[in-house]
């Protein structure tokens, strides 16, 4: 919230007199205004020169603040929103869908965490190709490590479609045109891109976005985390932006994270304790070297029990 003088242009009631009256009570910004006792302020205004104008000014600032807050919702409205607007997207892997009871939810931020080469990128690519082919809407892929392989996406698409169908190549073109890939190499660009995406979706210029995949978020945050509190603040800001994007615009957000060494040699997910509460769903992926398959375990889910796991194979 701005200092009060920035409001003068749009609201002429907040003129120089009003501001010097506020300044005499050490109120310079709207935040100071909010923490002050408004009844006492009105009492003081009554004793000043031109009290009516000052009281109107106080009411004006209060109404500006009230127009800024988000609307109240009740449980029934939320349930209706969840049932009508937010559907569940299949990941393309039958066994993961069974584990998650139908798949990834729109409106949820899902985190895939695992050690290196545990198929996180493969799951992301397969989910992107499956969602783009089966559901109407775009898939946004934010790639930080140049690991978006269009060849692999084409492979996944040709696996799932009928090889005898001559129309296959046309549909592959259609589907792959719905997957939009962007390379991002620092956190500020990511925040800019998320703002841009949100304003695009708000003004409904284009068709809807079903899924946003950020592979990997931890490589963007690692250079800034630890050197003071600012890196931490940026990480949490990004997390809240992702949650807002997921909820407001019915997008399923998927991010990947890596593992670091924890106590007693056991690995733990990177990005620390504050990050743990930001994603709605956390899935741990690991490679099973014996049969060249992978397994996924639920670390956190709003509706399912943690600890459940299943094996799957990436073809």
């Amino acid at each position, binding site marked *: *919230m*701005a*200092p009060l003088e920035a409001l003068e242009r749009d609201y002429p009631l907040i003129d120089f007199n009003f501001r010097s009256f506020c300044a005499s009570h050490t109120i310079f*910004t709207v935040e100071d205004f909010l923490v002050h006792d408004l009844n006492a302020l009105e009492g003081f205004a009554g004793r000043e020169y031109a009290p009516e104008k000052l009281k109107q000014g106080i009411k004006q600032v209060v109404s500006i603040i009230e127009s800024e807050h988000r609307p109240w919702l009740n449980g029934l409205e939320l349930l209706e929103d969840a049932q009508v607007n937010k559907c569940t997207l299949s990941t393309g892997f039958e066994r993961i869908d069974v584990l998650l009871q139908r798949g990834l939810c729109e409106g949820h931020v899902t985190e895939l965490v695992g*050690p*290196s*080469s545990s198929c996180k*990128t493969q799951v992301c*690519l397969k989910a992107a190709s499956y969602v783009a082919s089966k559901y109407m809407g*775009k898939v*946004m892929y934010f790639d*930080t*490590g*140049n*690991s*978006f*392989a*269009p060849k*692999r*996406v*084409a492979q996944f698409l040709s696996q799932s479609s009928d090889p005898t169908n001559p129309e296959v190549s046309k549909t592959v*073109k259609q589907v*792959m*045109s719905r*997957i*939009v*890939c*962007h*390379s991002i*190499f*620092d956190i*500020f660009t990511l925040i*800019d*891109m998320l*703002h*841009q995406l949100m*304003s*695009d979706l708000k003004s409904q210029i*284009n068709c809807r*976005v079903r899924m946003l995949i950020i592979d*990997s978020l*931890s*490589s*963007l945050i*690692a*250079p*800034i*985390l*630890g*050197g003071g509190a*600012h890196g931490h*603040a*940026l990480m949490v*800001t990004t997390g809240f932006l992702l949650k807002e994007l997921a909820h407001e615009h019915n997008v399923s957000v998927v991010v990947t994270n*890596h593992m*670091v*060494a924890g106590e007693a*040699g056991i690995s733990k997910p*990177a990005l620390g304790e504050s990050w743990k509460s930001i994603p709605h769903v956390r899935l741990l992926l690991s490679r099973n070297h014996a049969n*060249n398959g992978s397994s996924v375990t639920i670390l956190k889910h709003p509706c399912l029990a943690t600890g459940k796991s299943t094996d799957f194979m990436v073809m």
Partner: protein
Amino acid sequence: MEVSSLPISASHRGKLISAGYTSLSSLSSVSPSHLAQVLKISENEAAGILKVASGRSGLDKIDHGSGAIMNGAQTAWDMLHEEESSLCITTSCSELDEILGGGIHCKEVSEIGGVPGIGKTQLGIQLAVNAQIPAHCGGFGGKAIYIDTEGSFMVERVLQIAEACAQDMLEYNNLLRKESQACRVDKQPKEFLDNIFYFRVCTYTEQIAVINFLDKFVSEHKDVKVVIIDSITFHFRQDFEDMALRTRLLSGMALKLMKLAKKFNLAVVVLNQVTTKYTEGSFQLTLALGDSWSHAATNRIILYWNGNERYAYIDKSPSLPSASAPYAVTRRGIRNSTSNSNKRHKLM
């Protein structure tokens, strides 16, 4: 607090927040001179802050065409076509090229690691020479940048490999009997040396400085096609007390290399050393620099001994299956491994 997510310096951010400017809308109607007065900074600095803020809020007003949803994005279909028509840098060993899908790809950062003496530097030198193979022989005809941190770059060896490469190209052309032989220019071994830009770094700060400088360097020398860093580990292993700082520096470096590879469409090859790690009850050999670094590269190739032969194994790749292939280090450089000759007898 939207202002905290703007890319401005920490002191400016602190001053803005304490003066009450915490959202972008509050900065939209302020003039630079007024802001400079309130924050007690110079007018140039205030103008810079307002420019960054208006850049962020100005994104809302950009007029988009009906096609791409955002500026700078590409659809997967366009990228597939680009990838199909792109070339790779061959390693001169056909089995290795096969498992790599043609060779080292551009726009990717490939990490190659192995025990000492396995041939990492030899592979690096071979790639620096092979990036210069001219277009009529199926190469890029580009230049190479070699960043040496260990001092293991021997010019005599590079000359040897370059001579062998020039000979191979001559044989290839004679076999094909190209009609345009008159206008074909033979590449001399010394020309290969001319086109390798060599940087010697002696501390980690120099290493970070060189990588920051590469952006400007490559925009002036647009035909650089490969950047080889041999090795990225050396200055980060000894005498580094603050491990958190090391992780931050390495992740920052990885992002810069990725950006370089993507922006200038070149291949970045990073050579790494090995260390032991205690996993699953035993000590195993893994690549150095820790868990966070293992996520930094696009591809990872591990070189190892199998009996008396050298093998390469693809450990991490977004599109290639895991596979291994044998190779040999010969007098002429990296070549296919033949079953009996060219083996090194390990000293017991």
